[in-house]
């Protein structure tokens, strides 16, 4: 998009108008919690002026959407929770600040599972986000069957989560790029179901300051885009050390591997980890996986099978570490300084006020994890659960270190087990079971802190996106993007065209 703006084939106003129109068209999908047209109008003015004056910045005029768990100054940031329904931050998250400073135009804040706890964008106080695929909003010119193949008419394909709003916003073209956050797959999972690029950079490469945390040690701000080019532009703008986040690093990326032409890929080795061939993996995904592996081999990559023996423990490990950090992080939501405040005559002690605030304003999944986390952290349980989980995490991390050390440069795996499920199918399972299915392939990258990317590959029989995942060693994000870029060109995934209002 940036390229088109800069070479003049499309003006800022045209692009903005197109996106603003699509924001309206896709309203029924519930991708946005809040559309920020007052803000975006001002930003549009400035961008227009800058294009006239020739003083454009890196992201000048690019329409963006931000998941509603990134703090935006003077713009309500809800985390899709009753707790923060009226929370207006007085500051911008570092990533938001960097995007706005480089000229991006904020279209709105997008829907998510409450506090990011979910994998369908079905657990929001604002209602679920619906996938644009399979909806009746796609123009027929695309030759895509847009009928919901489910039984009930009010059923729909889920967007995936928890960054489902951002994924749908990008898939529908209501913005060029969007920010999500990825703790166990929350960027890659909806990207996979919505047919967009979903990039979780290396832990430590992007500031978390202003991202309302889920699991601090795994959260990474992620990028959703239609193209690897757009994704890379955003990454260039938002990456890098931030004094406000002590866990960010200023690392010079591996220059020797960057900026390679396709002819140089023949030196690279692609690993196919056998543990990702897991129960429940659909035959369509398996076929896509095989085909893309062949494609890479034919493009000059060396493709080998590798083993990451502790992969299947990742979910169990996550189901301890996640609640522990959640229990801790959520302790601040007591309703005293901000957030939901219960009223009632019976609230005659600090404890009863806390209890009322928290039980009224946090959903059952959130409360369940708080309870579990506090249980795991009890003195008598700490070694049994938390320490064990940390050990497991180390084993998973070590799997990757060992595997990379054998000369593997990139991994190719599934990202979700199938194309997008129907809402009715998805909600049959409880939150833990959902997570076990949805996060199986994405979770390990968060444990290891490595960069991972979901790339749309082709359409399933149901005309829904099928995607695959690429992973690279820690801080080798550039190689990951290079390989993804090459595949993108080869695969030529059909992006949908949204009907005009």
């Amino acid at each position, binding site marked *: 998009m940036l390229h088109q703006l800069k070479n003049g084939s499309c003006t800022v106003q045209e692009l903005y108008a197109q996106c603003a129109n699509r924001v309206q068209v896709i309203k029924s999908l519930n991708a946005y919690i809040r559309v920020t047209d007052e803000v975006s109008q001002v930003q549009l003015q400035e961008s227009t002026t800058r294009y006239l004056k020739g003083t454009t910045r890196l992201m000048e005029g690019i329409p963006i959407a931000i998941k509603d768990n990134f703090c935006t100054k003077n713009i309500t940031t809800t985390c899709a929770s009753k707790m923060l329904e009226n929370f207006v*931050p007085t500051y911008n998250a570092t990533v938001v600040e960097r995007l706005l400073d480089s000229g991006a135009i904020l279209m709105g804040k997008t829907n998510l599972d409450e506090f990011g706890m979910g994998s369908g964008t079905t657990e929001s106080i604002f209602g679920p986000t619906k996938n644009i695929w399979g909806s009746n909003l796609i123009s027929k010119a695309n030759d895509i069957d847009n009928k919901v193949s489910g039984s009930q008419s009010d059923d729909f394909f889920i967007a995936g989560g928890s960054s489902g709003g951002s994924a749908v916003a990008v898939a529908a073209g209501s913005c060029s790029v969007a920010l999500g956050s990825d703790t166990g797959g929350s960027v890659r999972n909806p990207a996979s179901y919505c047919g967009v690029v979903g990039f979780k950079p290396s832990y430590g490469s992007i500031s978390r300051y202003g991202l309302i945390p889920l699991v601090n040690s795994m959260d990474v701000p992620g990028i959703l885009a239609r193209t690897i080019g757009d994704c890379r532009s955003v990454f260039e703008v938002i990456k890098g050390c931030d004094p406000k986040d002590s*866990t960010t690093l200023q690392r010079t990326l591996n220059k020797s591997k960057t900026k390679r032409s396709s002819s140089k890929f023949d030196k690279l080795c692609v690993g196919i980890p056998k543990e990702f061939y897991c129960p429940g993996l659909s035959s369509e995904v398996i076929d896509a996986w095989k085909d893309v592996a062949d494609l890479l081999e034919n493009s000059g990559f060396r493709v080998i099978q590798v083993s990451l023996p502790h992969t299947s423990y990742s979910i169990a490990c996550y189901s301890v570490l996640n609640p522990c*950090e959640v*229990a801790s992080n959520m302790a*601040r939501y007591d309703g005293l*300084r901000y957030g939901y405040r219960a009223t009632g005559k019976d609230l005659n002690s600090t404890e009863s006020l806390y209890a009322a605030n928290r039980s009224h304003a946090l959903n059952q999944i959130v409360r369940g994890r708080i309870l579990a986390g506090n249980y795991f952290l009890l003195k008598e349980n700490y070694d049994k659960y938390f320490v064990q989980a940390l050990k497991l995490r180390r084993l998973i991390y070590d799997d990757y270190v060992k595997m990379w050390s054998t000369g593997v440069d990139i991994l190719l795996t599934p990202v979700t087990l199938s194309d997008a499920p129907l809402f009715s199918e998805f909600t049959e399972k409880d939150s833990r079971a959902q997570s076990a299915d949805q996060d199986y392939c994405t979770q390990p990258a968060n444990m290891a802190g490595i960069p991972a990317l979901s790339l749309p590959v082709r359409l399933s029989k149901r005309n829904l996106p099928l995607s695959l995942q690429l992973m690279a060693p820690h801080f080798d994000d550039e190689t990951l993007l290079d390989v993804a870029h090459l595949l993108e060109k080869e695969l030529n995934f059909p992006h949908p065209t949204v009907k005009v209002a």
Partner: protein
Amino acid sequence: MNSFCKQRRNLPFWMHITGIRAIFTKSLDLACAQEKRKNWESVVGLEVHAQIKTSSKLFSGSANKFASPANSLVSLFDCAIPGTLPVLNKKAVEAALLTALALNCNVNLVSEFDRKHYFYADMPAGYQITQQRLPLASDGYLDFAVFSSAVHKAAYKKQSKIKQLQLEQDSGKSLHEESCSGSLIDLNRAGVGLMELVFEPDLKDGEEAVACVSELIRTLEALETCDCKMEEGSLRVDANISVNKPGETFGTRTEVKNLNSLRALARSIDYEIVRQIEVLEKGGKITNETRGYDPQQKITLSMRDKEEKQDYRYMPEPNLLPLSLLQLKLDPSDFRVRIPVLPEQERTMLMEKYQLSLETAIQLVNGRNIDYFLNVMDSLPNLPVKKVCSLLLTDLLGLLHKDEKTIQECQINPRQFAKIVELVKNKKISHSASQNLLLLLYRGDLRHPEQVVEEEGWTMINDPKQLEAICKQIISENPKSVAAFRAGKAKIFKSLAAQLKKECNDKYDMGDATQTLKRLLEEKKNV
């Protein structure tokens, strides 16, 4: 200014002179308590929270200032706004490192931060960032002297081991105003850096605890790493107390929290020891509980809301990297050389160089009298150190104390003071004349000491004959007393000596004078 000095100002003069024992408990029936305590041993361990003297807080850029308008020093992080992250204040680490080295601790080159969870209205995040598992420093010790004014006890040296020194956040403050229905919360203090010092249970009573904390205060003040204003809460003490029969293991302990004066520290510990003994002697049991000290009633009370067993659900703080001194480019050896001369070293120096007693050394070091003393000693050669100490510690400090002043505010400069002592040493003036001279100069007389002596006619008469004449006059004027003395009533000498002193009018050496009188009385007696 030393908070210890401030507290002493309101005490009778003798208490000031005799030191810390002075601020001791009166609420207990001491005699009875002492009797009870004979059959028991008491064990006291301290936990001290010292606010680190840095311009900003431990993990945020807000200023660290006492008595600012409520909630005026609160950053987004301090009130736990979602999405904010802690950033470690390097200056706080430097201060804690210097303190750890001064307290003879082993410094951990890599330490870690943990979250300690509990819900409290003035704890915005629902957890405190602390260093539970791997603190900045451990295994140190503090040497100090216990100076008891109790007649039968001499001063003695003592050591308390330090288990660990950890960095942590302070909480905010809850104010329970009666005028409004709820509580008010001030977060100015929330997030201020604390050094928590955990001492081993090495002490036995309130007196030792006060001596230990006083020494810690002097040390931190010398290091300039803490204000140590207990009344403002910049240094707070928790005391763990238990009693046991000799030869038995430690008893169940109770914890008295948030003691914000040395007086409260002493009283609460001694109260608690006696309370525990009474409970046990009546066949009761001590429960492991947190107690608060009520300074009005001078008793400790169980804090009911904390009775429930707390589980802090510690977890590593995921938003901070391990604290690596090397990464922060902090080399402990650079800090070791920055440690100033500490009170314990000063006392040792005074005792070795000037042959002072431990008691005198303590008095000189406490209240920072030592600098004045050393200046005096350096002003003139060969001054009699005993005379310097008595004139300084008894006379000068006495005058200062009446005016609620410290030695640092004294108008007599050390050179003038040295001159007075030299006049005594050279038998130019008598001891009592030196006291008068001191008073005059103290009150602002600008004349040179020698000039005062001359103009006031205080020059000492060193003529044995004149002295003998005065003594004879006393003997002749008091025939009854003289007779009584000669009959064996030795006590009567005191009244004769008093008359002699009056007659001498500060112009004679009183030692010589009384000896002369005694000699004359004895001479006749033997005849």
